[in-house]
C-alpha cells in the first residue's frame, strides 16, 4: 500500500510557525509527530491530506520539565520511552510511567509521543482497514459512509478510544495546552474528549496540542495502570484501567479511576472518588468500584474479544488495581 500523494511536507521550527501553517491549510492538513498512527492510517487511505505538517523539529515541545510550585510540564513531542525513563515522573506520577511503558512495543515507544497518544484516532475493526477492504465491506460513518457496522441502524460512531496514557493523565487531573492562531489556552484533559467516535476530540483544524501539565496536587499518589491485551506487547488495549490513590492513616484520602478502550473516549469515573474517599479498602469495596467501572464501560465489537468479556475485564481489572494500589503494589520499581 503506497502513501497517498500529498503536496508538501511542511517543517516548522516554532509553535507559532506551526499554527500559522495549520491555519493556512486548515482542513487539508495532518500533523506528523511520531507518525506511528498517522503513517499506517495514511496507507489505508483513512487520511488523505494535501499537506503534512512535520512538527518533530519544534524542540521546545520536547522533554519533561519540573515547574516549581505548580507541577510538571511535558512537551507534546516527548516520546513514551522518555516518559517511561523519567525519574521525576516515576517518583511523582508513577501511574503515567506505568501507562507509558505499556504502549505498543519498544520500537514504537521510541517514536510515539504523548501528544499523539492523547490525540490518537479512535479505533474500530470496521474502520482501521485498507481502502480495498472498506470498499468491499461498505464504508462506515467514521469514514466515507453513512452506516455503522457495530451498531446497525445507529447513526453514532462507536469507534473506541485506545490510548494508554490518557486514563493515567485523567487520574492525575492533567491539563493540556492548545495553541491556536488566537493564542494559547489551557483546558482540563477531561474536557478534551467528546465521547463520539468520529469527532472524538475538541481540537479545531488550526489548533495544535502543545503541552501537558501535571499539577503538584496530584503528585506522589500511588498509581497503577492495568491493560487487557492478547499479546504481551504491540497490542492496543482492549480495555484499560488507571487508578491513583493517596492514603492518610490507613484511610483513603483521595482516589481517582479512569478507563480506556471501551468507550469512544477515555473516561474519568467520578463516582469512584466518592465511593473510595475516607474508606479503608477491602475486597468488597474494591468489588463495588469494579461494578461501577463496568457499568460505565460500553464496549462494542470495535475490537477483538467480545464486548461482554471486555466489560467483565474492566470490572476485574478495576478491582485488582484498587486492591493493588491500596497495598502499594506497582509494576514500576521505585
Amino acid at each position, binding site marked *: 500500500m503506497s502513501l497517498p500523494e500529498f503536496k508538501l511536507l511542511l517543517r516548522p521550527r516554532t509553535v507559532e510557525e506551526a499554527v500559522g501553517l495549520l491555519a493556512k491549510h486548515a482542513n487539508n492538513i495532518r500533523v506528523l509527530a511520531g507518525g506511528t498512527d498517522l503513517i499506517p492510517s495514511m496507507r489505508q487511505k483513512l487520511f488523505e491530506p494535501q499537506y503534512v505538517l512535520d512538527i518533530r523539529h519544534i524542540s521546545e515541545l520536547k522533554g519533561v520539565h519540573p515547574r516549581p510550585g505548580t507541577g510538571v510540564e511535558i512537551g507534546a513531542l516527548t516520546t513514551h520511552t522518555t516518559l517511561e525513563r523519567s525519574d521525576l515522573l516515576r517518583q511523582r506520577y508513577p501511574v503515567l510511567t506505568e501507562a507509558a511503558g505499556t504502549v505498543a512495543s519498544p520500537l514504537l515507544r521510541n517514536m510515539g509521543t504523548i501528544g499523539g497518544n492523547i490525540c490518537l484516532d479512535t479505533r474500530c475493526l470496521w474502520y482501521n482497514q485498507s481502502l*480495498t477492504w472498506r470498499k*468491499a465491506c461498505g464504508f462506515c460513518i467514521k469514514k466515507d459512509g453513512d452506516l455503522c457496522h457495530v451498531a446497525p441502524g445507529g447513526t453514532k460512531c462507536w469507534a473506541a478510544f485506545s490510548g494508554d496514557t490518557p486514563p493515567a493523565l485523567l487520574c492525575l487531573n492533567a491539563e493540556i495546552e492548545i495553541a491556536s492562531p488566537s493564542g494559547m489556552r489551557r483546558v482540563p484533559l477531561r474536557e478534551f474528549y467528546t465521547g463520539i467516535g468520529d469527532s472524538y476530540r475538541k481540537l479545531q483544524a488550526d489548533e495544535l496540542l502543545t503541552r501537558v501539565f501535571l499539577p503538584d496536587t496530584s503528585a506522589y499518589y500511588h498509581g497503577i495502570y492495568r491493560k487487557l491485551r492478547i499479546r504481551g506487547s504491540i497490542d492496543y488495549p482492549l480495555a484499560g484501567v488507571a487508578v491513583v490513590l493517596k492514603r492518610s492513616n490507613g484511610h483513603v484520602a483521595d482516589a481517582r479511576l479512569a478507563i480506556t478502550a471501551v468507550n469512544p473516549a477515555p473516561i474519568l469515573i467520578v463516582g469512584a472518588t466518592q465511593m473510595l474517599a475516607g474508606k479503608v479498602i477491602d475486597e468488597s469495596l474494591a468489588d463495588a468500584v469494579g461494578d461501577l467501572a463496568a457499568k460505565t464501560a*460500553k464496549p*462494542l465489537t470495535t475490537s477483538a474479544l467480545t464486548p461482554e468479556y471486555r466489560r467483565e475485564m474492566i470490572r476485574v481489572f478495576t478491582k485488582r488495581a484498587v486492591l493493588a494500589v491500596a497495598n502499594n503494589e506497582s509494576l514500576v520499581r521505585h
Partner: protein
Amino acid sequence: MTEFSIIGKPIAMVDAAGKTTGAGKYTDDLCLPGMLVGKILHSAYPHARIKRIDTSRAEKLDGVVAVVTGKDAPTPYGILPVGHDEHALALDKVRYVGDNLACVAAVSEDIAEKALELIDVEYELLPAYFDPEGSMKAETDLIHDNKPHNIEKDYHHVFGDPDKALAEADYVAEGRFIANEVTHAAMEPHSALASFELDPHTGKLGRLTVWSSTQVPYYLQHKLSLVLEMPMAQIRVIKPLVGGGFGGKSEVIPLEIIAAIAARAARAPVKITYNREEVFWAHRGRPRTIIDLQTGVKKDGVINAVKARVVQDGGAYCSYGVVTILYSGALLGALYDISDIAYDGYRVLTNKPACGAMRGHGTVNVRFAFESQLDEIAAKLNLDPAEIRRRNLLKPPCITINGLRVQSYGLPECIDQVVERSKWKERKGKLPRGRGLGIGCSHYVSGAANSIIRSDMPHSTVNIKIDRDGGVIVYTGAAEIGQGSDTMTAQIAAETLGCSLARLKVVAADTDLTPIDIGSYSSRVTFMAGNATLRAAEEVKKQIASAAARKMKCPPDELVFRDDEVYRRDLGGEGARATHSEASASGRVEGQILRGSLQQKRKDEGPKDWMTFEEAVVAAIDFHGALTGTGSYAPPPEARGGKHKGAGVGPSPAYSYAAQVAEVSVDEETGEVTVHKVWAAHDCGRALNPVSVDGQIIGSVWMGLGQALEEEMVWKDGMLMNPGLLEYRSPSAIESPEVEPIIVESIDPEGPFGAKECSEGSLAATIPAIANAIHDAVGIRLRECPFTPERVLTALRAQNKAKPINLTEGVDPTAPTRFREHGGALWFRGKGPERHPLDPARQKATAEIGGDD
C-alpha cells in the same frame, strides 16, 4: 576420533551472514532495468459472476504499460492434478473477497494503484457460503459447478472393524473439537519478478525467467508452462533467499503467474510483491476444522478403536485440500498402535481464501482432538496421562492397519525424556490450583512417499562437480526457505567427501542449473535431497578413491577421507596431520590450486600414505577425466502405502516423533493462560546439525503456542476482520515461554546418516499439551482453540455455574439497543454488512451460516 567430523556438530547456516547483515537478497530486493510494478485488483464480493471488466480507462492512465485480465491466461491450474480449479485472474467468477480480477503493470506503485481504481467491473452477485456445515447443504449456486454440495472431496475409510471394537470397549469417549483457522504469517510477503528475453532471431518474446519466493521452484516451472502454454525448457525459475514459508509458498501462488502474464503483455520485467492483506488473501493456511471424535479403550487404557468425522472449511479452491483431508485421517495411524479405525473426512468449499498446506499439514487439528481426548480417558480411568500413552505404543518395525510402515520409533524415549525433565511424577496433579502440567505427543512424515504428480521420477536429484581447484560444487533443486536445506546439503556432501565446509558451495533452486527436486514441503528435504546428496557424493568419492588408491598402492576401500585429507586406514591419519599442519593453518590455502612446483614435488615423492584432498582430486581428474557425480532418491516401494482409495497420502519412508510437557498457569478471574515452560522432545533420527534441530523444535513449539492461545483468522460474512499482523496476533517475545528442546536420535535405517524430519512433527504436540495443562490447572476441558481468555473464562464460569455476564446491564440509554454480537469468542455471529439480498447472512432460515456451532 569421533565417528563424524561435520555431521552432528552445531554448524552455523551457510547463508547466515547475508541474512543477519541485510546483505542477502530476497525477491523484492531484486531490480531489473525497465522493471514495472504490478498491482492486482481484488474482488469486493465473496461470490459473484463477472459480467464485464472494462480496463480501457486504466490503460489510458499515464504510466500504465499493460492491464491484464483472466482472458489473458484462461487455462486453469492447481497444485494437485485433481484440483485444477484456479485461474490466476478470475475468468468468469470470483469466489472470495480478495479473489484476483486484473493486474496493472505501471512505472510506479502509486500509478498502478490509481489505475486499479479506473477498472470497471460489473458483477452479478451470487449467494455466498461461509460455514462449512451450511455449505454442505447447498443445492444451487455452487462454488464450483462440478462439486455438488460444495464438497471438494470426501473420504470414508474403515480399517478393521471399529464398530465391533467400540462395542467391546470398556469406555468410549466422545466429543466435538474445533480448531479455528490460522495462517503461516511468514515474515517475507510473497514476491515474484518475471522477465522475458527476446528471441535473438525473431525478436519475439522468448525465454521466461521468474524469480520467486517459493518453496517449490519445479512445480512453479511446471504450472507456468501449463498456463502460459510454453515448453518447460523455455522457463527458468530461480528462488532467491526466502523469508519463511511454513507451507504458504509450497504451491503456485497467483502472483507468480500474474507477474508472468503481465510481463508478457507489457514486454518488460514486472515485479509484484503482496502487501500483508494480500498475503492473508493468498493464505493457503490451516483450515478451520470440526472434529467429532470417538475413542474406545479397554480398562487398562489400551485403545481398541477410533472413529473420527472431520469437516474442513477449505475456502474457495482445492489447493492442497484433498491431501489435507487425507492426512487428517491417515495420521490417526503411525503414532500409537490402533487396530480399528473409521474415518469420514469432508473437505468443503466456502467463499473464503483457499486453505492449503501449513506446518504439520493435516495432522495438527486432529492431533489436538485426539491427544485431548486421550487425556480425558486417562482421567476417567484414573491413569497417568504419560502412562496411557506408553500403553499404546507401536512395536516397530511394523506396518499399521492403514498401511504406514514404521521403522525407527523414538516416541518411548521422547515420553521418558519429557516426563523425567519436567519432574512429571513428582509434580503432575500436585501443583497448587491454577497451575498445571499437560502432556501431548505427535508425529509427522519425513516427506511423502508418493509425489503429487504420480510418476516414477526420483523425488530428488543432486549433482556434484569437483574441479582441479579442489572446490566442490553441489547442485540441488531443494529450496532453502530458512529451514537450513543448503547447510544440510553442504554438511552431508562434506562429511561424505571428507572435505571442509569452506571448500563447498551449494547451488540451489535454479531450474536451469540444478536437477529436479520437488520442493521444500512435507519435511522431505533432509530425508530425500539428503539421501540424493549422499549418493552423489559417494559416487564422486568412489572415483577419487580409485585414483588415489592407485597412487597410494592400496585397495580403494582402505582409504579414509577426512579433514581434507585422504589416507590409509591403517595409518589413522596421524602422520598426515603432523606433516600437513602448516598448510592447513590458513584454511584458505587448502581450497586453492596447489602451485605447480609443489604438485610436481609431491608427485616426485612417489607412493605415499596420504594425500591432500586437492591432490586426490587432481589424481582423479588425471585418471578419469571430468569429476562429477550424481545421486537421486525415490522412496522404496515398501513405504508407499496400501491400496485403498486415498492410500497415497500418509505413507512416508520414515516418521518423526515428538512428546511435550507444558507447564501453564491460569488466571481464574480473567481466563488468561500463561505458558511457563515447554519440555519438547523430538525424535529426528540423527541430528545432522543439533543447533538447527533445536531451532526447529523451538519454532514449532512457538507456532503451536500461537495456534493454542492467540492466533485465529476472524471472519465476518466473508470479510477477514484481521488481515494484518496487528490484529492477527502471533505471539510476541514476551509471552513466549522457555522451551527446552530435547533431541532424541533413533537413527533411521534409510535416512541419510540416519536422519529424519525435524521441522513439523513437534508443532502438533504443543496445542494438546497446553490444553491438557489447563485441565490440570483448573479442571476445564477446552475443545476449541485458540484458548483465548474469554473461551477459558466462559468454561470456568460454566464449571462454577457462575452467573453469565449481562451485556446490557447498566448500559447508557443512548447506546444502541441491538448489538452486533460475537459468538463463542473471536468468531462472529449475527448479521453482517448488508451487502446483497441473496447473501445468506440476511436470510433468516440460514442465519447460522457464518456463525458458530
